[in-house]
């Protein structure tokens, strides 16, 4: 089953091609967005629904670090700045006078 409903990929593609998103992308990244990957993912999703072999591929938009929209990180991995916790901070729920 695809990670998301096909309509979600369609929505992301339409949203990506809109003027408002193009403006915000230019404002944030200095370049216009590339939206082709969402369309490809939508087509692949529809092909899967029709029972095609294209379903074997992980949608590019959903791959970690790939694709606009979800995790707009341009496909690059960066060294983490801090170490992730395995459990929440022990004093999160402590009453204030402690």
């Amino acid at each position, binding site marked *: 089953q695809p*990670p998301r409903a096909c309509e979600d990929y369609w929505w992301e593609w339409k*949203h990506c091609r809109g003027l408002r998103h193009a403006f915000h992308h230019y404002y*944030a990244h200095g370049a216009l967005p590339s939206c082709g990957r969402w369309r490809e993912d939508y087509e692949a999703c529809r092909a899967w629904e029709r029972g095609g072999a294209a379903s074997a591929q992980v949608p590019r938009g959903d791959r970690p670090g790939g694709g606009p929209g979800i*995790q707009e990180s341009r496909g690059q991995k960066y060294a983490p700045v801090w170490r992730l916790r395995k459990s*929440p901070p022990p004093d*999160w729920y402590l009453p204030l006078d402690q």
Partner: protein
Amino acid sequence: MEDGEGESSPAAETKGAEEKDDFGYRLFPDRNKKPQSFLVRSLFTFHNRCQVMLRMTLETNPYAQLLLEAMKQSGCTVFNDRHFSCENCDGCVSGGFDAATSQIVLCQNNIRQQSHMNRVVTHELIHAFDHCRAHVDWFKNVKHLACSEIRAANLSGDCTLMNEIARFKFGLKRHHQTCVRDRAIRSILAVRKVSKETAEKAVDEVFDACFNDLEPFGRIPHSKADARRAYKDFQNRDRYNANL
């Protein structure tokens, strides 16, 4: 500060003041003071207004709702009366995150509009979210502080075009990143006794990694509609991860 607008200064403060660095504690003089009486607080401060606006934000603002949900999933459920505190603050600061008490401080004397409250709460919740999910060394590691500041300025709506124009800061191509960088440096300088060069160096070193760390939003939300979409995607994330 800048044009009289209150600025979020997310500081990690310690209860004991250091000899050289008070970690921004001077900006929040009501921390650790005896709470005022209910009558004094209600009649002579903006405490009630702050509480009403805070509740409105937590119940209706999609940025805040996404962060609250993300924190709950990380094991840090946020309770209004435990994790938020409306206080009077010094200067133009709008709020802060006190890692020592795991509390978000909101400056009731400097936050006057609901939109400002929305932004400040989002900004501080991002710090709280980072504190919850990672070992952030707020006191000793300027890079950690810089990273959280970059993320908060990036994702809270601090650097929208309209907000920048209101500050008379004009720019278009990649101006969002310029704004994020500048605000991160200013926030560090407000709460740490470090030189401007040190703050700039710390921000520049971690900028790429932290600007592209979009958790829990998954995108840079440029509007409430973006935030609502991000919230919906976050709620469906379990399905995404199961199916990938």
